[in-house]
């Protein structure tokens, strides 16, 4: 299929592995899905140590299920990315370990306390879910199918995240203050989740033309702010003064004062060059290496039995 035909036919779930897609499409889709898959892995690893810190058995059950889901999302997404035929799952996992794989800004920041957990569990998952809901109508069918399953599970993540926030903000004054502190630290990062404004986004144009993306970063950020600012306020959180957010009532639109955000840090993170990047990528790479022997065993088993095994990979 040539690129013009792709752009003409672009629509929800239009293209599948049966279609002969041009290299440009396959590379753009791989870049996008690999980024998404990497983010699921890195989010899961960031949260995992907090399973142990859960304040109750109920929270521990819910939170460990949530972390398990995130790793599962990564597996679904690496499959969807693999189906484009550009990179194998092993290649993508190695790239992540080597610091070449890119992932969401929020997961480059180390987490220290339980008060930060709802910042991820409610606000970051909430932002991610807003975006993922729109990706149910992406043009790469295996990606859309992965989103069906992911969004099914995310309702639990976001509601449980909100419940953690509610619990903290209705408990002692000291807890409320610590939660507010965590919120102030995370809020600018969450706003940057949706990246820079459209004019600065390098890949948006093409991804939108071929139907991979259905909403712009700015549209997503608007929808997020519309929903989550009132949520934060309802629980008594105070929205920090910076970045300044101006609400234009006549247009029903929020304007984020971009200069108030630290874009140098954002772009350093985008290059995996922030202190936290090295920490997070490094600790995950160590764990990948620690289970290398399992992978090797499985690979040699698969090769030894390849005469009789069906094409299990597909």
């Amino acid at each position, binding site marked *: 299929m040539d690129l013009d035909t792709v752009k003409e036919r672009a629509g929800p*779930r239009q293209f*599948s592995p049966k279609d002969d897609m041009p290299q440009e499409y396959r590379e753009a889709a791989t870049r996008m899905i690999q980024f998404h898959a990497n983010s699921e892995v890195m989010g899961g690893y960031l949260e995992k140590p907090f399973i142990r810190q859960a304040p109750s058995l109920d929270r521990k059950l819910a939170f460990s*299920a949530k972390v398990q889901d995130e790793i599962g999302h990564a597996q679904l997404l690496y499959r969807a990315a693999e189906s484009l035929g550009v990179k194998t799952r092993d290649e993508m996992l190695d790239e992540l370990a080597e610091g070449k794989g890119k992932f969401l800004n929020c997961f480059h920041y180390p987490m220290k306390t339980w008060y930060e957990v709802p910042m991820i569990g409610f606000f970051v998952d909430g932002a991610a879910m807003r975006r993922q*809901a729109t990706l149910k109508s992406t043009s790469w069918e295996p990606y859309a199918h992965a989103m069906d399953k992911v969004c099914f*599970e995310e*309702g639990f993540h976001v*509601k449980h995240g*909100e419940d953690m926030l509610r619990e903290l903000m209705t408990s002692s004054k000291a807890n409320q203050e610590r939660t507010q502190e965590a919120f102030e630290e995370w809020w600018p990062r969450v706003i940057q989740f949706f990246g820079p404004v459209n004019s600065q986004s390098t890949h948006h144009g093409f991804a939108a033309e071929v139907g991979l993306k259905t909403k712009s970063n700015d549209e997503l950020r608007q929808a997020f702010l519309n929903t989550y600012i009132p949520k934060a306020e309802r629980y008594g959180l105070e929205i920090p003064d910076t970045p300044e957010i101006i609400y234009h009532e006549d247009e029903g639109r929020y304007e984020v004062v971009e200069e108030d955000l630290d874009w140098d840090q954002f772009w350093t993170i985008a290059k995996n060059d922030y202190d936290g990047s090295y920490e997070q990528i490094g600790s995950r790479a160590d764990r990948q290496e620690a289970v290398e022997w399992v992978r090797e065993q499985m690979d040699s088993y698969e090769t030894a039995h390849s005469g009789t095994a069906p094409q299990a990979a597909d």
Partner: protein
Amino acid sequence: MIWEVFRQEKPGGYHRHVGNVHAPDREMAKLFAQIQHGRRMQTHSIWVAPQDEISEVDDEDTSFGGTTDKAYRWAMTYNRVDASGIQEVVESEAEQRAAAKKREAAKKEEADS
């Protein structure tokens, strides 16, 4: 030879198991699947797979708690928060609710039979 048949109604949808056909080879299986499952209902695509190549585990085999109550996994459990303002969460919860209903109905059917 028995071939399991999976039918996809519309492009972009899922292939769902609809039954099986008895056929001597893959080509014949595809032909029979078309006649039995494709022609009668709206169909966009059909997969056939040899029955031997399909493996199953059920809730009696699994050690990870096939039918164990996992209420902590469902959005419906967290009722002290009001998610009605977040459209995508509402949709996800509705899907989970529908899945729970289906599970209940299946359980009841099994108990009645």
